[in-house]
């Protein structure tokens, strides 16, 4: 029997040892789905003779959960949105950027050089920016109002299935905007009112679920829903890839206001290969690569140097919102401490009822 015990022990040892990797020459990129041009990855792999391993997330809560469940030591680059940046910095999940290794950082437009969520780019460098808006089926709503009422007002949409955003902060923000408190509302009173509206809304017969931004486009194309929330670039990207299915699907920025976001590249605190991560960030900040990225995924570039190389479609709505719409865009507030906990409880309540 001792032989068997030994085999068991050996196998056990193998299991315990397995799992650790941090191999040289590998970059672990944790990014949103449908957000990276494969050719850029190939170019980077070729330039530095490395392999890029990509993993994807559909929402920021999902990203944060993976990161705190061990991902902090397994990814080299993450691409969170503005309102998660302070949270990541304060919980020590990310490391400061070494600006000496990022000569291309100066390519960023001024407003991205010193963003409110990360003064002085200490931890983050902008990747892309865009908007969250309402997508709807224009056959179902031929003269749909440019308004959140398409979701929240049962008189405007009494029977067509619609979905809200899986990320609670966006859904609550949308409800706040509809109620006239503005998309970036904070404070218990406004939130409570918004949560009530959401509970009433989700109990309507034609509410079909909380769906993340990218899948909601698929659902709309397949007729599962007729109104939902999504991102301008993904919308353009999908529409371009499958013009037939997306022929009747429109993207709009509600007049009550909605979200503008900036996704930034950050390096997790215990990244296996921070040096390569810096190289990657600098690579993306390159003028031509930055333009190639935007041309591929239809999001606005934060890169001033990239401008000459950008496709024309990127200078028009919905990629570049009109000036009027620009004035309606807000950042999602970054929450912490008591505020975050209150918010979580309200969102939990919305989901449970």
């Amino acid at each position: 029997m001792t032989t068997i015990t030994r085999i068991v022990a050996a196998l056990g040892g193998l299991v315990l040892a397995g799992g650790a990797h941090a191999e040289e020459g590998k970059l672990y990129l944790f990014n949103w789905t449908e957000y990276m041009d494969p050719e850029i990855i190939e170019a980077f792999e070729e330039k530095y003779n490395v392999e890029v391993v990509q993993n994807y997330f559909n929402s920021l809560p999902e990203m944060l959960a993976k990161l705190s469940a061990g991902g902090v030591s397994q990814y080299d680059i993450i691409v969170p949105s503005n309102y998660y940046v302070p949270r990541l910095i304060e919980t020590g999940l990310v490391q400061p950027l070494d600006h000496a290794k990022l000569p291309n950082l100066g390519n960023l437009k001024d407003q991205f050089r010193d963003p409110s969520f990360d003064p002085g780019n200490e931890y983050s460098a902008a990747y892309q920016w865009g908007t969250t808006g309402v997508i709807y089926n224009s056959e179902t709503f031929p003269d749909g109002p440019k308004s959140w009422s398409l979701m929240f007002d049962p008189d405007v949409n009494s029977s067509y299935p619609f979905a809200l955003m899986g990320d609670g902060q966006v859904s609550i923000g949308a409800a706040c905007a509809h109620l006239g408190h503005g998309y970036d509302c904070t404070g218990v009173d406004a939130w409570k009112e918004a949560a009530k509206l959401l509970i009433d809304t989700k109990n309507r017969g034609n509410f079909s679920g909380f769906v993340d931004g990218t899948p909601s486009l698929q659902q709309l194309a397949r007729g599962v829903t007729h109104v939902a929330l999504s991102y301008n670039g993904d919308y353009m990207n999908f529409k371009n890839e499958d013009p037939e299915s997306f022929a009747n699907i429109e993207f709009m920025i509600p007049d009550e206001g909605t979200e503008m976001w900036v996704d930034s590249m950050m390096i997790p605190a215990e990244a296996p290969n921070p040096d390569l991560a810096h190289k990657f960030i600098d690579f993306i900040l390159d003028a031509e690569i930055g333009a190639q990225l935007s041309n591929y995924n239809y999001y606005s570039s934060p890169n001033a140097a990239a401008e000459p190389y950008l496709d024309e479609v990127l200078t028009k709505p919905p990629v570049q919102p009109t000036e009027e719409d620009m004035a309606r865009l807000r950042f999602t507030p970054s929450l912490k401490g008591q505020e975050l906990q209150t918010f979580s409880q309200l969102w939990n309540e919305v989901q449970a009822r």
Partner: protein
Amino acid sequence: MTETNMAVRSRGVVSETRHLLFSVMPGAVWIIVFLVLPSIYLMAVAFMTNGPYGQPQMPLSLESFRQLAGFGFLGWSPGNLYTLLRSLWQTLLSTVLVVIVAYPIAYYITTCREKWRPIMLLAVVVPSWTNQVIRTFGWMNLLAPGTPLSDAAQALGLIAPNMGLYPSNFAVTLGLVYNFLPFMVLPLYAAFEKLDTAQVQAAQDLYAAPVRAFWHAVFPQTLPGLLAGTVLVAIPAFGMYVIPELLGGGKGMMLGNLVANQFAGSANWPLGAAGAILMLIATFVGLYAMRRIGKRLGGGEEVVI
């Protein structure tokens, strides 16, 4: 141990104990280290405080249990109670429905020719060999808006126009019944196969009505199988995560989702751990109750799964 070994008995006891340790220890230690300790750790987390970004931290408190009961910064709210009641209701409903379907099926298999029985049992069990996520995905396909089933339900006025049967609480119940049916059929089949036909015959002579004959002779004999099946169905159904998440569409949240959410989006590990403790208590109460009832009915060993 035979009598001839008496002389070496004392040495024998020692080596027997060593034998026991050697054979049982690797597995026992494995389960203790990789399951008992983690569970204890999780329970400890439930008594910690939620940090500013959701991570568990000192000091110890009962805050998470208060939150689970619905007491938050904004006073009491019924959300978690809804979730709990929904979990209980879905468990009860799906277990009853599973029994209603499984009972005749298990009986039917025993009435068929012996050579067919293994094949029939296999036919019932095989779908459960595919992954839970795939099975649930199959129902998403079947119940989505625009599918024949949804169109039929619309025509009958069961659901609003333009809507599908999924996502809904109905879809969750259906998914649960589908998922757990084999767990009920197998123990019931075992019970039916052992049915004492002489007793049934006697009952048929005694009671004119077949219903009464069934109730007095057949039903009590299948009770152990029924109880075993109930345990196998109800406990995992109560903690279900995948089905409400995929088929409920934000309307069918159950306790499993509440717990999982606290470790993902909302990031409140202590609250999630408190929910897990609630689930554990429910599990052990359920097991204990089944055991007690089983013993009283004289089911004996079989009831103890």
